[in-house]
């Protein structure tokens, strides 16, 4: 390698600048949560935790803001459903594509990856259109009111699930491909039945990937905005609630407080994921 000190220094500075660029908006979003001011802007008015815990207007803290808390609650419900469903289907897909032999496997595999690159807005509207068409049809023909097909929590879950499953499938497939087939054969050889092999060998081996993909699914669902916006009903999750607030009220430091809270939450999840991955590597 050519070791040119000026070049090396410039390269390092570039990398540093890049990470500052990455960190800047996050720092800005988090920092103003602690500014004792009605606006998330400089100058700095002193440190406060009011935007988290104060219970009176105008400085209503996030833990006393009904609508934000409700958004958080809905986000939590949605993310839990999405991660459970997508990990289950992702696991099935992983087995299907690593173990199954059937015609058209390559095409179906690409089809599995496609939802990741379809714009979220379009995923949202296409599901909205289908669900509404069915709901209208059923209503017209039988007079039944199928509310779960109207914009609302079930549709949000389905909309997010439709592309999150691609992520979980890819993560779990990658892990399953690393499983040495002879481990399972050894278990059979030692007298285990099929279900026991699955329970004692295959699933423990997949566990880190199941946890990691579940966490990713949870996060992606929690953060999602584009798809959600198209199919959201009256039960708005946190991102949509924040967006509404931003557009209608303008930016207030309580949004910074929520941002900070979410960043900490994601950080903890991220650490948990790194931990899960590390455990899998030591094996």
């Amino acid at each position, binding site marked *: 390698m050519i070791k040119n000190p000026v070049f090396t220094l410039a390269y390092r500075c570039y990398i540093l600048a890049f990470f500052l660029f990455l960190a800047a908006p996050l720092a800005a979003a988090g920092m103003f949560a602690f500014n004792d001011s009605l606006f998330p802007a400089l100058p700095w008015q002193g440190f406060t935790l009011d935007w988290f815990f104060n219970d009176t207007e105008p400085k209503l803290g996030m833990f006393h803001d009904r609508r934000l808390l409700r958004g958080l609650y809905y986000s939590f419900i949605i993310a839990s459903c999405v991660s459970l469903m997508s990990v289950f289907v992702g696991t099935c897909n992983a087995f299907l594509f690593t173990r199954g032999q059937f015609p058209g496997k390559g095409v179906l595999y690409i089809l599995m990856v496609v939802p990741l690159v379809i714009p979220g807005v379009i995923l949202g509207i296409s599901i909205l259109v289908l669900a509404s068409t069915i709901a209208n049809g059923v209503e017209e023909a039988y007079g039944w009111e199928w509310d779960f097909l109207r914009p609302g929590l079930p549709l949000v879950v389905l909309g997010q699930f439709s592309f999150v499953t691609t992520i979980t499938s890819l993560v779990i497939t990658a892990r399953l491909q690393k499983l040495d087939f002879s*481990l399972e054969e050894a278990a059979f050889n*030692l*007298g285990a039945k099929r279900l026991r092999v699955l329970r004692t060998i295959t699933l423990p081996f997949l566990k880190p990937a199941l946890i990691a993909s579940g966490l990713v699914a949870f996060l992606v669902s929690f953060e999602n905005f584009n798809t959600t916006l198209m199919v959201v009903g009256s039960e708005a999750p946190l991102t949509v609630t924040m967006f509404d607030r931003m557009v209608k009220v303008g930016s207030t430091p309580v949004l910074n407080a929520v941002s900070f809270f979410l960043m900490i939450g994601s950080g903890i999840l991220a650490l948990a994921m790194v931990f899960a991955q590390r455990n899998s590597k030591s094996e």
Partner: protein
Amino acid sequence: MEYDLTCESVCKKFGEFTAVDDVSFQIPSGSFFSILGPSGCGKTTLMRMIAGFESTTSGDIKIKGNSVLSLPPNKRNVKMVFQHLALFPMMNVFENIAYGLRCQGVGKEEIKRKVQDVLERVSLPDVGSKEISQLSGGQKQRIAIARCMVLDPDVLLLDEPLGALDLKLRESMKIELKLLQHQFNTTFIYITHDQSEALVMSDNVAVMNQGRFEQIGTPQALYHKPASAFVAGFVGDANRWSGRVVEGADGAVKVQTDGGLSLVGTAAGGSLSGSGTDVEIFVRPEFITVARAKGDAPAQVNGQNHQRGVVDSLLFNGANSRVLVRSTNNQLIEADFLLTGGTDDLKPGDAVDLSWSIERSACFQAARG
């Protein structure tokens, strides 16, 4: 005699390809049996059929006299040590060994007792609580065997388990495996492509090639009385020439090699079809005596072949040192030479006389085509 494993005309076809072709053999109880062959010869397929991971196309496999073809792998009392051992990384040593017992529904106390017992028999009494990643290569080997032996199998299959070890460890594991087999007194079937592993450990060896058994016999028989050209070439080292019969069909035959050596050999693997037959001639280096050349080149006498040549190079390897001799008609012949006894100061360029007995020159009819 009681046989632990009997295979009767076992065949396995994958589409058009025949992986195992009409293989029959019987293994007496408590013996160490090896299946030796190059990679792709079908030995792994044969073993997977015995373990139940592959179905047979035709033929029968019997364990202790009972056919096991209808039994799934988890019901056969044939245990297997996998090529990369397949120890379960998510369990510790104790749980690995206890796995099979738990599948059988053995009680907790008995599992403890049996695992401890088998750990002692493989002389690793204290590793029960260790993780698999904490074990050395040799220890893993023994745990993999213990995991099978705790179930008291009728037959233990070993699929090249030494392949992943380094040379030194492999040498010591060979002896250890043999000792373990004696200790457990269970039938071991050992699959390998390494002839020295097979020869050192086995009571009997089957040499396999292209899905067929070429020869079954003791290591000594394979080495000294190979039944086919393939066995002669695969087991042990040999000078190998192709040539043509000049005279004779049974017993001593006069042959001329393609390179121009003329020598007298012994027809092996059945009689040859007379003069003009294409043959392959095998002579092991250790049966060729090297002496410094004196006077005229000696004539072919006393059941010996003689060849005069010049030392081309010395291949020093301790007790297995060889000398490469270029004969007068420009053929290279490899011969052992002793570090003691007058020839230890040979140098390239020295003239030497080689001699070897007619009996040690095996001539096989060459495969047609």
